[in-house]
């Protein structure tokens, strides 16, 4: 990290998206993470995805918990409101925010400590409610900010920096989410931006809870030999199953259909996500199949990545609750005040 602030002057020649914005408009404050931290790569993939989707930053709300990962929302989409809440409790902030204003987009950023230990309950229940948001776990197998303790995603036998082996078996957020009925589940790698950007775009376009578990090495505490969340180990053991190819509503669809694609799913907003099958045995719309596939590869020490499960037909929280299409926060008080007459009518029953 250098302490010299980047000038915020937009070069006139920079490419602009449909919203008339350049990539620079999707940047945030300067990162204070360690040089080489996987989380910074994820931030840049997020900027790229939103830029490509031409979503205005201020129509997005960014929420996070506490941790190195949870600091990152400050470092992208500076034009979006952000909420760096308390450790492990971001899902409830996101759920409440979404309840208040369904018209914004929500991006939740969390860490493996934040989501799988202290925040496990809230994470699971946000899935159960199918809150319409993109939820990222920046998964490094350790607690970065508190200096490298194992997290619940650390693999059994994975080595700490000082050599100690982790004795517990890991909680795999992807398996957990699918078994809890999550409707969009993917896994990416911060070191593989090419695949990450379309995954993020697909997740954004999903109506409901979209989980992305992103392996994101901690260069300071968990990138050594013996770690199973290092850059080297992830590269060597990653097994891509399905490559998501996102097609926006606005684009000509035909031009993007590629050979080898075997499934195309229309998203709620009219966009399409295409699956380019990498492994013939895998179908990301088959829930039980996806579970056994991921489980069995995990048993072999492989990390299955790609778009792992997608179910676009279900209802997000507001459908389930029957909420008005207008955001709660936008309803004028006249619509909310039942008036003096109703109060009289109600009180008549209390006599």
């Amino acid at each position, binding site marked *: 990290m250098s302490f010299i602030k980047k000038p915020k002057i937009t070069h006139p020649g920079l490419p602009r998206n449909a919203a008339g914005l350049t990539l620079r408009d999707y940047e945030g404050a300067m990162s204070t993470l360690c040089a080489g931290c996987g989380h910074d790569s994820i931030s840049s993939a997020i900027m790229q995805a939103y830029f490509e989707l031409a979503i205005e930053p201020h129509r997005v*709300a960014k929420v996070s918990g506490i941790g190195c990962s949870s600091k990152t929302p*400050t470092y992208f989409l500076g034009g979006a409101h952000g909420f760096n809440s308390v450790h492990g409790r971001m899902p409830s902030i996101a759920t409440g925010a979404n309840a208040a204003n369904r018209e914004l987009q929500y991006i939740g950023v969390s860490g493996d400590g934040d989501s799988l230990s202290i925040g496990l309950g809230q994470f699971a229940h946000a899935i159960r409610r199918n809150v319409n948001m993109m939820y990222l776990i920046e998964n490094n197998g350790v607690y970065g900010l508190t200096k490298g303790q194992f997290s619940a995603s650390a693999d059994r036998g994975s080595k700490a920096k000082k050599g100690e082996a982790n004795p517990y078996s890991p909680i795999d957020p992807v398996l957990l989410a699918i078994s809890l009925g999550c409707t969009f589940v993917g896994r990416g790698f911060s070191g593989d931006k090419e695949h990450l950007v379309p995954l993020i775009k697909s997740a954004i376009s999903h109506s409901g809870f979209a989980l992305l578990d992103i392996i994101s090495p901690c260069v300071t505490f968990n990138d050594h030999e013996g770690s199973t969340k290092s850059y080297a180990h992830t590269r060597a053991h990653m097994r891509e199953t399905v490559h998501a190819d996102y097609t926006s509503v606005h684009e000509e669809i035909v031009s993007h259909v590629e050979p080898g694609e075997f499934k195309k799913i229309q998203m709620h907003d009219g966009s399409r996500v295409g699956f380019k099958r990498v492994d013939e045995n895998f179908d990301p719309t088959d829930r039980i199949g996806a579970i056994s596939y991921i489980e069995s590869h995990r048993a072999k020490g492989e990390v299955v990545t790609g778009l792992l499960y997608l179910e676009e037909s279900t209802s997000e929280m507001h459908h389930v609750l029957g909420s008005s299409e207008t955001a709660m*926060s936008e309803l004028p008080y006249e619509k909310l005040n039942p008036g003096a007459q109703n109060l009289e009518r109600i009180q008549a029953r209390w006599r």
Partner: protein
Amino acid sequence: MSNKAKTNNFVVKIANVNGTGSASANGLLMKSIFRMGIPVTGKNFFPSNIQGLPTWYEIRVSKDGYLCRSGKVDFMIAMNAETYESDLADVSPGGFFLYDSTWARKGMMQRDDITVLGIPLSGMCNEAFESARAKVLMKNVAYVGALVALLNIDMGVVETLLNETFGSKPHLMEANMQAIKMGQTFALENFDCPLPLKLEPMDKTAGHVLVDGNTTAGLGAVYAGATVTSWYPITPSTSLIDAFSIFCKQLRVDPDTGKNNYCVIQAEDELAAIGMVLGANWNGARAFTATSGPGVSLMSEFLGLAYYAEIPAVLYDVQRVSPSTGMPTRTQQCDIISAAYASHGDTKHVLLFPADPTDCFHMSQQAFDLAEQLQTPVIVLTDLDIGMNDWMIPEIEWDDSYVPARGKVYDREALRNMDNFYRYLDVDGDAIPWRTLPGVDPKGAYFVRGSGHNKFGGYTEKSDEYKDVIDRLRRKFDTAASMVPAPVIDKATDAKANKQWAIVSIGSCDGAIREARDRLTASGIATLDYMRIRAFPFADDVANFILDYDHVFVVEQNRDAQLRQLLSNELSIDPNRLIPMLSYDGMPVSSDFIVDAVEEHIQQGRAA
């Protein structure tokens, strides 16, 4: 007391087993008296289980309109053999004790200072009704019937009430009337009806309603324009949210679209409940939650965040007996300290102290207004007594010209017209900054955080920048003190007002204090001025009142004198000036308790 004095002036207590359907019989009794124009209140003492444990319902009939517990029982309806013994002991001398004489009970007659009445309620009902359920339920209706005769209840009123309830179900109407008649007939035939405790129609309930505070609080939130609630079930707060939901279903479904103009989310726990409330408030909705003590403990981390990051929120704490799980179905005012200072570090919260269901309604609007104006959580400290018991209150009035006070929020236009927006600047000198809502304009974007931030809203670890914000927050509390509801001060009309002692209290102690003051004056012991505090931080009047007297009695319902502590600490008042008067056994404080405590204290003072 003379017989005359007991007309429209006594306490009936019904001892029962929960899950046996006595609630509707007791409601019928209450409402009948109310419809006769006689002031009445009902207090429900129920167990923390669902079926099979002792439960009591205490009805106070008071021609003078006293709504508190008096501390006496004039007439015990003993329907639970398990508690016969203690129920018998509870009856005040000269009182009555009615029991189910289907089975002979030995040792029932130890007391010769009361009158025991036996009615074979089970026997009668077993004979008269077919189904097992009816046999059990109708016992309760039958004692109401007996009371019709014994207390001189207007039979026409009873019939009307039954008609309103069972009008559409004639067979139920019939069964109920049959049970009523059975009880009435037995009483008329066997006892000298009416008893010296009896009812005579009055006109003192016109313009009044019977309702509990959780219902009015939930309704108050609807009128305040709350749209989002998230909560986790916990006694005694659950019925507050139930009320909000039910009223929303009635009043807030869009007639055109059939969609809900509200959002009720049952959270997975209290941490999530308050989290959702913060998320929603941050995003511009009026959102609230309700809980009780254990929930406040669990919410405390998030409450600290809301204080420091300045997020509005409304939290109803319907207090129950603590510490820990305590007695969930008994009342206390025990969360004053834990609510005022909820969370670690230098944190303070605005509190409102409703005294009755009327306050619960109006303070709901005040709570949301204050929360948004001050950008901080507002905790409404109600309690089980207010929230779940049946109070007689004047009909609630609503002014349709009410406009929610949303506080300082820059809209899009304001943002476009300014150079830069900074979240935590004290622009107006009142220590309240301006905020913006997500989604409005990129210029309004800022980052909410519970970690160190400076007045611009940026992250900081610099001592002076941190201090700047935290010092403004302290000043914001001074602003708050000037905005919260002022205390209600009731000076004794007596000209030679006593400057030696006065009473200070909060919330649901109000009724008992009002009666106690009348009794103390009547008996010549003391004529006491009285201040009911309605909010924390304390308005200036609070200190001024206290400093006017040598000593004040601080009446509250907890063991550790929490209000006294708050007064002394926040107003720098010598604690020795504040004499604690503490009722904390889980029963709503009675006027007897206060009269006795004051009397004892004053006599000690005179002796010393």
